[in-house]
């Protein structure tokens, strides 16, 4: 009989497998803030823009929601993470900015500096 510690390690491996199965290893991972504060600032609409783009054929993107990172005055926030590159953190993302992030960053690899958080 495996110990709880062995069991949890197995569960962890399975969880990682499931996440990878959902496309975690895609070139770009996109995280949209979806805590109460972010939603109040309009992040649901932003999420929908990304969802729609994926349903319309945007590929190689892993989309996830996330909790509050803590940047209240810059919400909604969106991160684009690529292996081997610095994670890009966008602030005050609205529908229009989300669309631009899709066109310029996700499709063409351009980091839109003026919207990033430092």
């Amino acid at each position, binding site marked *: 009989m495996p110990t709880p510690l062995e069991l949890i390690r197995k569960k962890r491996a399975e969880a990682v497998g499931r996440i990878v199965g959902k496309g975690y290893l895609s070139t770009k991972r996109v995280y949209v803030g979806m805590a109460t504060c972010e939603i109040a600032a309009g992040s649901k609409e932003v999420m929908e823009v990304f969802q729609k783009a994926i349903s319309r054929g945007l590929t190689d993107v892993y989309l996830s929601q*996330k909790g509050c990172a803590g940047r209240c005055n810059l919400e909604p926030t969106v991160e684009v993470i690529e292996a081997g590159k610095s994670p890009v953190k966008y602030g005050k993302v609205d529908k229009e900015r989300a669309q631009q992030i899709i066109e310029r960053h996700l499709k063409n690899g351009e980091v839109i500096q003026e919207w990033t958080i430092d």
Partner: protein
Amino acid sequence: MTATYRIIVCDGTSCINKGSRKLTDLLRQELDKHGLTDQVTIGLSGCLGMCDKGPIMVVNPGYTIYGGLTESDIPEIVEEHLVHGRAIARLAIQEDHLYNRFFRVFGDAKFFGHQMRITLRNCGIIDPESIDDYLSLRGYEALAKAITEMTPQEVIAEVQQAGLRGRGGAGFPTGLKWKFTAAEKASPKYVICNADEGDPGAFMDRSAIEGDPHTVVEGMAIGGYAIGASKGIVYIRAEYPLAIKRITKAIEDARAHGLLGDHILGSDFSFNIEIRLGAGAFVCGEETALIHSIEGSRGMPRPRPPYPSVVGLFGQPTLINNVETWANIPVIVLDGANWFKTVGTETSKGTKVFALAGKVVNTGLIEVPMGTTLRQIIYDVGGGIPFGKKFKAVQTGGPSGGCLPEQYLDTAIDYESLAKAGSIMGSGGMIVIDEDSCMVDIAKFFLEFTQNESCGKCTPCREGTKRMLDILTRITEGRGKPGDIEKLERLGNMIKKASLCGLGQSAPNPVLSTIKNFREEYEEHINEKHCRAGVCKKLLTYQITEKCVGCGACRKACPVNAISGSAKNMHVIDQDKCIKCSACFNTCKFDAIAKV
């Protein structure tokens, strides 16, 4: 090279002592030599918690941690890693610690660089509704470790040794609380998570649950194992629907994975969690009132002792901790008490989450090591006061805390230092106040809140806060009398001493601390009927200055016809008629109306 690197050098005391600042200088020189200054940015961080391996340097992207660095290592890092993109295995520390995971994504941003994240380690980097995300970051491994390798006594000893103290505000040693509850013979026992966050402007617990609910669930399960309880309750206020949804889902998912319920992970330990909603009464954050509320009675406190660890929910021994306290537990179990206690001050270990708000450039949810100074929080993390205004005070601890003026800015925060300065740690509200705010008005705001939320059980709190509020209202309306300040002090001290629970015992704090630190503002209000910040409307007079062009806009805006004057001539305000509504002030396009 195409990639831009960001390097974070640990600027904690231990790393500085080991020469980190010299290394930073050297790094800058080397970058300059290679012409990389524009492509590599260097940031300093607060203590990264790896003191035994210092000096520490983190290279992003990749979160490569270099430790034990000497001066001769710097050229190699620049040449190999930054120029050729080859991380140096010899210098890299392989650490899969739980804390600071957040920094793998956010570590290079200035705002986050000064922080240290234990409680909020996963907040903002994982999908809070996915148990897979949590499991993949060693989720529930602490629970498994406790069940597999540790006896309940060992778990308690670990928490005690870590020096963790209650994050709800009072700072009672958590391990001791666990020990007392574990020592009780009665059965069943209960575990409660206090998520009844009610301070105005505070949102630490909400964000923690919304961002990483499983941490709280795991912490509670470990607590249940340690004290021998099989039932846990999350008491959360109904105003937090998203937090409720997420923690409910977390509990269901954990159950589906065999991480809650009977025979957790095939062991003999069984533990279940259910949720109780609070109706939003501030007093229900007090543990005995909270317990009454769960039992179905009116949310009112009772005298202690007996403490809930002896007589708690339904008369049984009960372990009750705050959200933030619970979220620390998995880290203590997995990363160890020995590591945990390296963070913080002599008396207060670990980190504290604050909701930074008010007149500060970067408002937000922050987590910093105990011992960080108020100045570091407000200026380094918070980015200072906006619009070039002058700092006046910082309010900590919400309606139970106090306002600290400039001379306390270099106070290294922990439970003792804040109390000594005349405020409290509290649950983590932190409001920055600039010169445009009136301290009497702020004291009144907080007292209005506590007076409203007083449950009415004991007289000092019920009647005393009301009388204090009467006096404060009088002062802000220009009807203050000599002796009012002394009366407020006497009443305040009486309420503090004679009230039954923490609400009453701390309710006068905002008033007493502002009297202590800003007495001259009270005196001005009373003696000169003057509010220097121009906030107390009834003490203001509006006057039209020579800038007036006689456009008549203010005359038309005035709802009581107090302004007279003919076209193109300077207008005047009849002070007897003026109701001080500010309509003229807001209407004037020529900046010709002054508040005096």
